[in-house]
């Protein structure tokens, strides 16, 4: 079976069905793609990574936060190590920035010392307590009130969206099918054994289902009569700043945590921006991604405690992300109710870091519940490199244009993204289907003008490459149409009414 990606019909049967195309689902699919199995990933949206995976801090935590012995503690450290091994081959942008937990007084210095001991218990390498002078030398813009910090050299940053795409693309290259715009409507259980998944695109017979449905994983469990856990969505707001102030901060800066959260961080991104956030608000609606005036004011105040002068005038966007919390630890393991159903749920922070390790551990969990595995001889562990024009030297850029003239047409001027890169992002095995999908893959529209200039052009390129009318191009979700035709409007209602 060849791998595929898109809103097609589901196959009649699959050895394993993974529900959810977030970073966790895609990492699991990629781990399963090493074996001779037919694997189907079902994703509700037109693209992967549209829920928790797209809007988070993008941090690879070193692993000193989690309580020793928990899934979080084990998978965080293992996941951070896996990213270091896998990122380059999978095309996942990652920077080993290290991280600092900043203390502002003697009491916080004690907390920081405790974190170091916990980190050592968790197997985190290289942790050091830094003096005020060391911190200021490394981070000249930090608050002068700093007393010291915990330095974690294995802390890193990653692009969470491209991490998901990297896993997904590699899974597809190794024969995984990802069906998008497909919602699960039911799980058929016979004699306490999963036998099929019903979806809006048809029924798939299967004996193994991985629940990686993120914010909706509680609902999925309940479809099999399993109410062993509940998801409490927690919203976090962020402000992203332009690359022109990218030098503000060199490493991930955490405040010293209190009992509630890790606090508001100030961090660079792999693309050279800076962000502040997140706060943590418990909400009921797992789709409520609204930012609020109070929330944004709160993260500004919080970030100022670490970084007193924030370049608020260079903010380019604000967004909210949702974390799928289900108690203190991840929910990993077989369903107590339905055989063949296994959960990778409640994956809150450090979920992004843990994702590749969750992939590995879920293979073991499936094996434990009876899935038989045979190594695939043809497994290809890497994705072909995608040229990033703006990162190349002039000579290489000239060669790229000579080979493909579309490298000579800059579509996104803020980030210097060429038409060739956009076309490649659409035609790739896990290709963009939406304007945001293009933006997240190649950053066209992710800069300071936020697509004001390139948005109409990207829309036209998507329509051309996908062979669809401009009026069918969407922003991100299935119903997020962007433009209507004059005829639609003249007809009174329009196709979108």
């Amino acid at each position, binding site marked *: 079976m060849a791998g595929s990606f898109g809103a097609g019909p589901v196959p009649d049967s699959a050895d394993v069905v993974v529900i959810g195309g977030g970073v966790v689902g895609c990492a699991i699919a990629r781990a399963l793609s090493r074996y001779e199995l037919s694997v189907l990933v079902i994703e509700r949206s037109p693209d992967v990574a549209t829920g928790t995976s797209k809007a988070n801090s993008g941090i690879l935590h070193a692993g000193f936060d989690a309580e020793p012995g928990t899934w979080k503690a084990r998978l965080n450290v293992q996941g951070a190590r896996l990213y270091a091994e896998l990122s380059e081959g999978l095309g996942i942008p990652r920077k080993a920035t290290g991280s600092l937990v900043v203390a502002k007084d003697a009491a916080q210095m004690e907390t920081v010392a405790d974190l170091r001991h916990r980190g050592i218990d968790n197997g985190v390498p290289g942790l050091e307590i830094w003096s005020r002078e060391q911190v200021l030398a490394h981070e000249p813009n930090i608050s002068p009130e700093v007393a010291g910090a915990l330095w974690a050299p294995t802390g890193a940053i990653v692009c969470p969206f491209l991490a998901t795409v990297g896993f997904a693309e590699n899974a597809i290259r190794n024969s995984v099918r990802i069906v998008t715009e497909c919602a699960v409507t039911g799980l058929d259980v016979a004699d306490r054994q999963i036998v099929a998944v019903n979806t809006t695109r048809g029924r798939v017979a299967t004996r193994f289902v991985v629940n990686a449905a993120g914010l909706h994983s509680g609902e999925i469990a309940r479809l099999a009569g399993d109410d062993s856990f509940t998801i409490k969505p927690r919203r976090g707001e962020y402000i992203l700043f332009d690359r022109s102030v990218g030098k503000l901060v060199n490493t991930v800066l955490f405040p010293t945590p209190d009992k509630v959260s890790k606090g508001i961080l100030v961090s660079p991104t792999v693309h050279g921006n800076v962000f502040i956030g997140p706060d943590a608000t418990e909400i009921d609606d797992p789709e409520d991604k609204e930012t609020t005036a109070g929330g944004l004011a709160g993260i500004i105040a919080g970030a100022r405690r670490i970084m007193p002068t924030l370049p608020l005038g260079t903010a*380019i*966007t604000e967004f909210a992300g949702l974390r799928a919390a289900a108690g203190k630890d991840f929910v990993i393991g077989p369903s107590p109710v339905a055989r063949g159903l296994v959960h990778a749920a409640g994956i809150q922070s450090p979920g992004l870091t843990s994702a590749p390790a969750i992939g590995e551990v879920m293979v073991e969990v499936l094996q434990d519940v009876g899935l038989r595995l045979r190594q695939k001889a043809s497994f290809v562990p890497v994705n072909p490199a995608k040229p990033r024009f703006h990162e190349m030297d002039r000579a290489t850029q000239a060669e790229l244009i000579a080979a493909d003239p579309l490298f*000579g*047409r800059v579509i996104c001027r803020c980030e210097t993204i060429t038409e060739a890169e956009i076309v490649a992002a659409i035609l790739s095995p896990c290709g963009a289907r939406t304007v945001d999908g293009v933006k997240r893959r190649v950053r066209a529209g992710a800069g300071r003008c936020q697509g004001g200039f390139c948005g109409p052009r990207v829309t036209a390129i998507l329509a051309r490459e996908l062979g669809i009318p401009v009026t069918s191009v969407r922003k991100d979700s299935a119903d*997020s149409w962007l433009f209507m035709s004059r005829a639609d409007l003249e007809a009174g209602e329009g196709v979108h009414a």
Partner: protein
Amino acid sequence: MRELSYDVVTIGGGPAGMAAALAAREAGAERVLIIERDRELGGILQQCIHNGFGLRRFEEELTGPGYAHRYIEMVKATDIDVWLDTTVLAAEPGGVITSVSPHAGMTVVRAKSVVYSMGCRERTRGAIRTPGSRPAGVFTAGAAQRMVNMEGYLPGKEVVIVGSGDIGLIMARRMTFEGAKVKAVFEIMPYSNGLTRNIVQCLEDFDIPLYLGHSVTAIHGKDRVTGVTVSKVNDRLEVIEDTAFDVSCDCVLLSVGLIPENELGRAAGLALDPITSGARVDQFRQTSIPGFFAAGNVLHVHDLVDWVSEEAAIAGRSAARHARGELPALGSERSVTAGEGLRTVVPQRLSAFEPGKMSTHFYFRAAKPMGASVLQFWADGVLAFERKLRVVKPSEMIVADIPVRKIGDASTLEFLVVPAPEKIEAEDEIEEEA
């Protein structure tokens, strides 16, 4: 990789780039090049299909494409080279310009003079931090204008416009003409940021309400915009409690300001004016980088293209003189300050005047709306020049021609706008008959 040499290169082929190139050629620059990213010349004018352009420059009321057409024909009638579909990646001090295009690949141009004429970009929702969700249907007014006027697609059918900048007002009428319902325009300031004529003929003509002193405090919708929440603000622009109301819509157009597009300059170490976000220039429109000039919206945002053309001609002539080595070297400059009542002044500094120069043009933006006022020019603490202004609006650029003899050798140069002692019936306008 091609390598070529030119006397004057303009980066951008909109109204500023074309006017600068033409003026440079006319002033004797022999090899002149316009580098344009789009597939045709004209820049933003091509999507501004409304009329009102050119009253000053051509003494006619033209549409945007019509105004562009005049300049395109003038450029065609010369031997100025035009590269379309070509993006400048870098313009380094010394005049080394690296550009790319699909048809010519990468090219390095050595220019004796460079004119920045890249125009401006629109402020975004992120820049004004409007909370809420991030559904489809939120566009900057200019992006929507391009889709409607050039591609023939509409961004929605029930529209709320945020900000009363001219593009927003123009789009209110355009969307109405296209059959959409424009529900309201919300402006956070107590006055409009658009031209009065646009308030009249784009809003009042169609009974579209303009809410001054109102802020959109949230955008709603999961897939597509479903509405906005609006509140009144006080004079510190803070939301007043219990004044919130919701307006349903499927489209939000933002017209909340324009920002000069100076990324090339910034990369080259250009000194910028923090208020205009454009380069700091002298009366020749020369920037802090020798041989680099700036004109049009990349220098400061204009409300009339006529002024853009005029300013670009100054920059183009100066660029030609610099290419011949006739422009005095930078140095020994005097700063010009925008004082009380004013927000910006261009030029921000003065170099030595050439012999025989009679007067020089200054452009200002007012800090706040005022009635009858007087523009004052103080040289070394002495009131050297006054001009009466019937009315002062931040949305309308003030232009004044100051005689060189009034400037003299003064080292402190400051402009002010103060209330006039009596009502002014007629301004001592430089354009009596529009």
